[in-house]
């Protein structure tokens, strides 16, 4: 989902709901939402979210693009899928939230430096694409320092005890990062995925 929504700077955009329907994964079922509140009620992080999925869907329909894309709700989601399985209207709530979260960063409504989840995702993705595995040292380090050098030192020191404990129990290794075999194949798979995604967006 790399397509840019038509009016990235407008506060209100009445075509936003239609755009979400056509471009966001699962957005075509958002019009089934009947505002019952089961998604936000089932969500284990609902009380941490400013809006919650139900209200976000209503606001998307109302064209409140800016207010929606400034919400913290997307990045609180832990993908537990409660909302997806409980929704009485089969709206894939989690997918839509993730799509909107990505849009929020892509269009600059939210800055990555304020969104820990997005920075963690970057670190995770870097490790997976580079080694084919998540490295238990590099991913946290990259994530800690993504918020700045001072913050990185602080977070690293705060987690030092855990790291030493993991070393002691052989949950963290010393030496080169572990890598998957045949990383060329992994690269080909990822390239294919990017190609498929581009094709989908081309058709949207």
């Amino acid at each position: 989902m790399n397509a840019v929504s038509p009016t990235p700077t407008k506060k209100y955009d009445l075509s936003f709901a239609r755009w979400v329907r056509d471009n966001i994964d699962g957005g075509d079922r958002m019009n089934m939402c009947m505002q019952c509140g089961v998604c936000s009620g089932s969500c284990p992080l609902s009380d941490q979210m400013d809006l919650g999925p139900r209200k976000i869907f209503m606001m998307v329909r109302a064209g409140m693009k800016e207010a929606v894309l400034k919400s913290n709700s997307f990045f609180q989601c832990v993908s537990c899928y409660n909302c997806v399985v409980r929704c009485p209207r089969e709206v894939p709530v989690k997918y839509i939230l993730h799509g909107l979260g990505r849009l929020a960063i892509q269009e600059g409504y939210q800055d990555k430096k304020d969104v820990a989840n997005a920075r963690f995702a970057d670190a995770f993705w870097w490790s997976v694409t580079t080694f084919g595995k998540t490295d238990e040292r590099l991913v946290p380090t990259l994530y800690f320092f993504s918020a700045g050098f001072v913050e990185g030192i602080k977070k690293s020191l705060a987690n030092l005890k855990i790291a030493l404990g993991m070393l002691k129990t052989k949950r963290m290794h010393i030496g080169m990062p572990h890598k998957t075999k045949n990383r060329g194949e992994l690269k080909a798979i990822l390239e294919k995925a990017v190609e498929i995604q581009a094709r989908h967006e081309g058709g949207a």
Partner: protein
Amino acid sequence: MGVESQTILVVGGGIAGITAAVEAAETGYEVVLLEKEPSLGGRVTKLNRYFPKLCHPTCGLEINYQRIKKTPRINVMTMSTVAAVSGEKGNFTVSVKRAPRFVNANCTACGECTKATSIEISNDFNYGLDTLKGAYLPHEHAFPMRYVIAPEAIKADGEAIKAACKYDAIDLDDAGETFDLNIGAIIWATGWQPYDANKLTMYGYEMADVINNVEMERLASHDGPTKGKILRPSNGEEPKKIALVQCAGSRDYNHLPYCSRICCLGSLKHAAYIREQYADAEVDIYYIDIRAHDKLESFYVKLKNDPQVNFIKSKPARIEADENGNPVICGEDTISRDVYATPYDLVVLATGMEPSTVCGKPPVEIEEDEYGFLVPKAGEVDGQISAGVASGPLDVSMSVQSATAAALKAIQAVRSNS
């Protein structure tokens, strides 16, 4: 080909079946009314009151029973089901299976047989909320007014029961029977059953104080398990804070995708029962939309004006037990966006209606809609018609209308090529 039979078979002796049978018979047609239970009345006779006027169903049923008694052309067969159907309009051969009642028409409903048995069975009339003796009258307004003996009571105390009866009404050798009827047209009025609340895994139906709406009707009925007093099933105390949860199963693709139509008014009626019995009780109604259509809206407005009845626009996400075992309803209030967790003394799940035929299809080909309701499109041509909730979720008055229409279609069917 001429019509061989003009007899109309009505399958199901609930309000729709009774109405269809009476309407057809009163215009001069022979009618056979089949009912699988020992007495007529179906779901309606288990209701405490009707909405919106809060009158008692016994009144309307009694009028219909009088009409049946005055119409010799209606043949009522209880404890009977359809085993097989063959043939076509005007010439169906319907095989009827009658289960043993062990009591013949000599019965005067004196009740001596009840005293002669010690066997206790689950009381289906009260949805299993209590038990009764194995020799029993189905309920006090039973039609026909005749006792039934459970097979387990016959096995245990058969001779004692027979000895206790002064009217020679006990037939220990009753083994039921299967016989064929020649029928011109069939009206399927097989009705509905409450959606199984155990399937709503997040709604804690296994808790004693979480009940469904049909059980609430029995709790409020004077001949119910609590003699009409609404009490907490867990400890028999008076509930002070009660929640009524709408759309428990209905309007949900995981359960019943359709709106069952009756539950909103049913729950408003339950709120009225509670407020009538307990002046200080508080009732919270959790809803998605209140669907009080047409003239029924005035009943909604009346309840809305009651300061002790609160309407909370939210479909609860789950119902949990607190440390004392009391139900706690959790979810998001969609007006305030607050996430709540509220404890209650009693929770009533407004479970929806599903067609009875989901548990046993009619032994014949008949068109169904995507939810399993019977919707034969050309009943007057094919001789098979559906009536009442067998045809879709309806309230009592709409069921009666649908049954009258079905009676007319059945008459058209049996007359069409005579």
